Structures are given as C-alpha cells and as structure tokens.
C-alpha cells in the first residue's frame, strides 16, 4: 500500500519536472539557453519517473531492465546534447564573445 503511494508520488514529481522542461523550450528566446535548460530537466524527470517504477516492482527482472535503460539514457542523453551544441558552435552560430 505504502509502496503504491510512493510510486504515484514519484511519477507525479517526474511529470512536474518534464512540464518545466516543456515550459523552458517555449520561454527562452535564444537557442543556447534553451539547450542549457531543457535537456537537463528532461534527464531529471526521466530518472525520477523510472525510480517510481522500480519501487513499484521491487527487486525483479523488470526493475533490473529499467535500471539498464536508465544507465543507457544517462550516458547517451548528454552525448547527443553535446553533439547538437558543438554543431551549432562550429557552424558559427554565436551569441556572445568568448572570454
């Protein structure tokens, strides 16, 4: 019973984080601040939601697979953010002088 309640609370918190990520990509006016904010909030929401699911299932193969997915996403999500930002920088899309 308490496990079920904890699951519901964690998944709701994850949804709130994702809501802020979606607000972030509409609120900021230039590309670099959008990419700084949104991808990170995404990852936080993802991990919270997955933690909720893991608590629901306990120690089974289901939750172990979910942990595997979490590990893959935590490694690949910053890599693709990095690739997009680097491609924008090298193409010369520049906002402010370097220091």
């Amino acid at each position, binding site marked *: 019973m308490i496990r079920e309640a904890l699951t519901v609370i964690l998944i709701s918190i994850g949804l709130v*984080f994702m809501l*802020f990520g979606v*607000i*972030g990509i509409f*609120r*900021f*006016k*230039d590309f*670099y*601040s959008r*990419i*700084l*904010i949104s*991808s*990170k*909030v995404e*990852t*936080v*929401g993802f*991990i919270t939601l997955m933690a909720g699911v893991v608590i629901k299932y306990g120690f089974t*193969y289901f939750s*172990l*697979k979910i942990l*595997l997915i979490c590990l893959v996403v*935590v*490694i690949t999500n*910053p*890599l693709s*953010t*990095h690739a997009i*930002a*680097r491609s924008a*920088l090298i193409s010369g899309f520049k*906002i*402010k002088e*370097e*220091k």
Partner: protein
Amino acid sequence: MKKVINYTTMIVIFTILWVILNESATLFQILIGIIVSIIAIYFTNSYLLLDDYIAYYYVKTFVLIKYLIYLIFQIYKSGISSIGQIIRGDSKVIIIEYESCLNDELSICLLANAITLTPGTVTIDKKGNALKILCFEGNNEIKDAFDVEVCSKFEQILKGRK
C-alpha cells in the same frame, strides 16, 4: 595477476547483463553467458582495438559506483536550480575555457559527460585536456567550482580510475 582480476570483473559484469536480458538465471543460461562474454571481449581485443581492452575502458568498480552516486546527487541539484532559472527567465550565455588536470581520454570524456549534466553547463569542445564550457553569465556556483586551482570533486574521484 592484476590483468586476470580485471578480465574476470569484466566477464562477471557482461554475464550479469546477459542474465538480465534473458530473464532467467539457470545454470545453463549462466554458462552460455560466460562463453558469449569471453568471445565478445576476445573479438573486441583482436579486431576492433589497437591496444588492450583493459587499457582503454577499464574503470574500477568502486570508482564507478562512487562516480554514479555523486553524479545522481549533482543531477538532482542541477534540476532544482534549473527550475529556478526557468521561472526567472534570464538568458545571458557565455563560453568559458577550463583546463582539466586529468590526462587520459576516457576520464576526460566522463568528466565532460558529468559537466553536461551538472547545473547550467554544457561542454562544447574538447582539445587535449582543455574543455570549452557554455554557461549562464551570472552563475556564481560555476565560477566557484571551475575557477579554482585545485581539481574539482569529479576529477578527484576520476583520478583513481585504474
């Protein structure tokens, strides 16, 4: 001797992955897993890499766990600070350069990965051990963390990789 222990750890980790993907932990399945992981490591060693597998990709298990726990703590810290940033809506971006005190490839890549996930920063470019970091202008937290002479916490953790 050290090499044997390292390879055994890798084989154990790969076998655990095999068992998770197959969803059954019978003796037969574990045996197949061990054989498949030995073949995989041998193939990677002899055909895909110039050097040994261990020299490139080995991270001590203890260091990896410490890194992951500290990373998750930092991710949550960063998520909460980003929400404040979204509500305030200020958006002045600058690029700073940061020289890391690590000097092997995998550690620098892990550091860049961690920087991308921590508050208000994205790594953009890497040349040797100098990283270009994109961050918000008025963010004092970053200045404290990266303008110091000594290594940051992540680097201290990653230094004991081998």
